[in-house]
């Protein structure tokens, strides 16, 4: 029997308070995610239960109990307090998927500060933009990644402390602090008394224009994350759960930390490069029962074929789910054939904080569909022109949600206007605190879809120019801004290009400065320039040289025109196109 039971019945009798029942949480108890994922699990008698089974490069393994999480995160919390960090201040976590990342996340939240995890493959420029925007005060990193911090630290006036959590302390610079979490096990720490709106986690997300925006979440998000983990991922006490996402992105925190640990479930982490064989071996060795992954990975596994699957014992698996980009029907059908289980697609985003439209255990699956709205979520499709909800099945429009679910983001850091622009029907002067609870509004996700006569949603695509590559959103503006810093490039436009495995990859159109000619070396140089400056995700995989970029008469590059040509779509109204 699945945790959700009947989807229809759950929808009829829904209240978010059910999350409290699922967590066995009573009024008056602490609402602090750091404490709920560690102290609270120990207090209920599960301190010696395994919380984290970690495997790194070369097969190195470590195991931590919930009691380990408790005393180690206490150590981080105490250390931060002693450094002078105040509740509400931002603490960046910039490291690979090592145990310190997971434990420090809890420690930061426990003492009331805001955890700002960032993808460790970010280059120095991507890092700088996000730390500057957040006024980050402390950064936890590793010896491998501290070099990127050193390059930009002079440009970050708010950054007071750089803390390195592993490696050789003798190799650090004078102003850097070495912190070994094992040396700071702390038995007692009183967690900060946070409320549902107290800032907790800050994730950055890319848009079409401007630099990435910081989507701020609050401690009350745990209700949405715990309940969706229970009903969609179907986690039970004796499960061994594996979420393949990196906590540098929202899936890695909502469902790679908060969801499973608030419920006291054991989870595994594999921190080594992707190979299909290594992943299957990991599932076999750890007897993984529930596996939450991404379409890009699933399609890579498909590419390596059924023969490889048969070399491993994957019989422990009982439930599979996917997130990041739409899961194509072929992948759903393939997974059912080779694993005996279909990957269930889930749709949500950084801003929503938890799953919104998903397939549920026990529900009839329509391969390629996003599924149905989570009970308690009021979803709609808004007409592309009028923004009114459409009623006719099959009509493509904007995916929108009525505000008010507990995991909804609280604001974009320092950007109330952009926050307001995400709500249809918002008053010109409405502030985030009003908008996020006004159930008469629609929060617009930025994606397009339709629903069918049975109420299943079907993804169509982004409503903007943001590139979804391997389940990660990359802003074209960021790439274009970085490209024109290259000495050879005069102008640039970046778009998403269709890709079999990653859904989209970055393609750029560039014009060259005088004295530069297209060449293989230049192409490679540009690719590596962006890879190091921004991230491997932002690296163009296709570069097209142009004499001139298409522009409007006012001089704005017509990205949508280039994208339409690339995708073979109608180029639309070209009346604003600049004459040759």
């Amino acid at each position, binding site marked *: 029997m699945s945790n959700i039971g009947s989807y229809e019945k759950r929808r009829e009798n829904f209240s978010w308070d059910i999350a409290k029942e699922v967590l066995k949480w009573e009024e008056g108890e602490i609402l602090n995610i750091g404490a709920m994922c560690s102290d609270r699990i120990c207090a209920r008698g599960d301190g010696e239960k395994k919380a984290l089974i970690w495997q790194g490069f070369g097969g190195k393994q470590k195991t931590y109990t919930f009691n380990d999480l408790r005393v180690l995160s206490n150590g981080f919390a105490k250390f931060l307090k002693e450094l002078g960090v105040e509740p509400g201040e931002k603490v960046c976590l910039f490291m690979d998927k090592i145990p310190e990342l997971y434990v420090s996340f809890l420690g930061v939240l426990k003492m009331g500060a805001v955890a700002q995890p960032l993808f460790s493959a970010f280059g120095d420029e991507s890092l700088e933009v996000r730390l500057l925007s957040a006024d980050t005060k402390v950064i936890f990193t590793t010896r491998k990644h501290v070099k990127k911090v050193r390059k930009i630290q002079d440009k970050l006036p708010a950054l007071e402390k750089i803390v390195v959590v592993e490696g050789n302390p003798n190799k650090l610079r004078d102003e850097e602090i070495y912190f070994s979490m094992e040396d700071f096990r702390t038995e007692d720490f009183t967690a900060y008394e946070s409320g549902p709106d107290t800032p907790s986690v800050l994730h950055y997300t890319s848009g079409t224009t401007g630099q990435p925006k910081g989507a701020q979440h609050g401690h009350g998000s745990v209700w949405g994350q715990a309940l969706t983990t229970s009903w969609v991922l179907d986690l039970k006490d004796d499960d061994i759960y594996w979420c393949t996402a990196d906590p540098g992105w929202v899936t890695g925190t909502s469902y790679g930390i908060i969801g499973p640990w608030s419920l006291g479930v054991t989870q595994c982490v594999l921190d080594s*490069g992707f190979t299909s064989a290594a992943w299957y071996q990991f599932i076999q060795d750890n007897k993984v029962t529930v596996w939450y992954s991404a379409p890009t990975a699933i399609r890579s596994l498909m590419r390596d074929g059924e023969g490889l699957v048969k070399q491993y014992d994957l019989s422990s698996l009982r439930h599979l789910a996917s997130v990041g980009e739409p899961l194509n029907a072929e992948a759903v059908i393939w997974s059912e054939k080779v694993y005996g289980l279909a990957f269930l697609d889930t749709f949500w985003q950084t801003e929503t904080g938890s799953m919104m439209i998903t397939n549920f255990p026990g529900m009839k699956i329509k391969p390629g569909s996003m599924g149905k709205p989570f009970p308690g979520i009021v979803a709609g499709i808004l007409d592309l022109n009028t923004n009114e909800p459409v009623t006719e099945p099959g009509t493509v429009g904007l995916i929108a949600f009525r505000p008010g679910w507990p995991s909804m983001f609280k604001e974009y850091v320092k950007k109330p206007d952009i926050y307001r622009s995400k709500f249809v029907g918002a008053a010109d002067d409405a502030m985030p605190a009003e908008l996020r609870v006004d159930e008469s509004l629609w929060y617009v996700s930025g994606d397009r879809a339709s629903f069918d006569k049975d109420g299943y949603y079907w993804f169509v695509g982004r409503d903007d120019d943001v590139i979804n590559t391997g389940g990660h959103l990359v802003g074209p503006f960021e790439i274009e801004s970085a490209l024109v810093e290259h000495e050879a490039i005069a102008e640039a436009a970046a778009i998403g290009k269709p890709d079999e495995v990653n859904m989209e990859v970055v393609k750029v159109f560039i014009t060259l400065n005088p004295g530069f000619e297209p060449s293989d070396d230049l192409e490679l140089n540009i690719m590596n320039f962006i890879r190091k400056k921004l991230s491997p995700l932002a*690296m163009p995989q296709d570069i097209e040289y142009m004499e001139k970029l298409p522009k409007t008469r006012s001089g704005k590059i017509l990205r949508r025109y280039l994208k339409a040509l690339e995708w073979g779509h109608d180029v639309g109204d070209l009346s604003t196109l600049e004459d040759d």
Partner: protein
Amino acid sequence: MADEMKDMILEYVIEEYVDEEDDEEEVGYDTPLISSGIVDSFSMVSLKVFLEKKCHVSLPDKEATPEAFDTVNKICELVRRFQD
């Protein structure tokens, strides 16, 4: 010729993927690249482009797997297979 190719690839990997300050990573012909995290799977694309341009070979996506790119020696084997 084979050794020249190996050296060229190794030199490129060290220059592009190994931090110059990093004195702890000694990269050789058999050092795991993908499974050790020196080269992440997204960055494999630029390595593939490098090989195709410099070795005048076309590597099918199906063959350019993390396993086939995991060491300089394995990469050389792959390139030679498609040069023949």
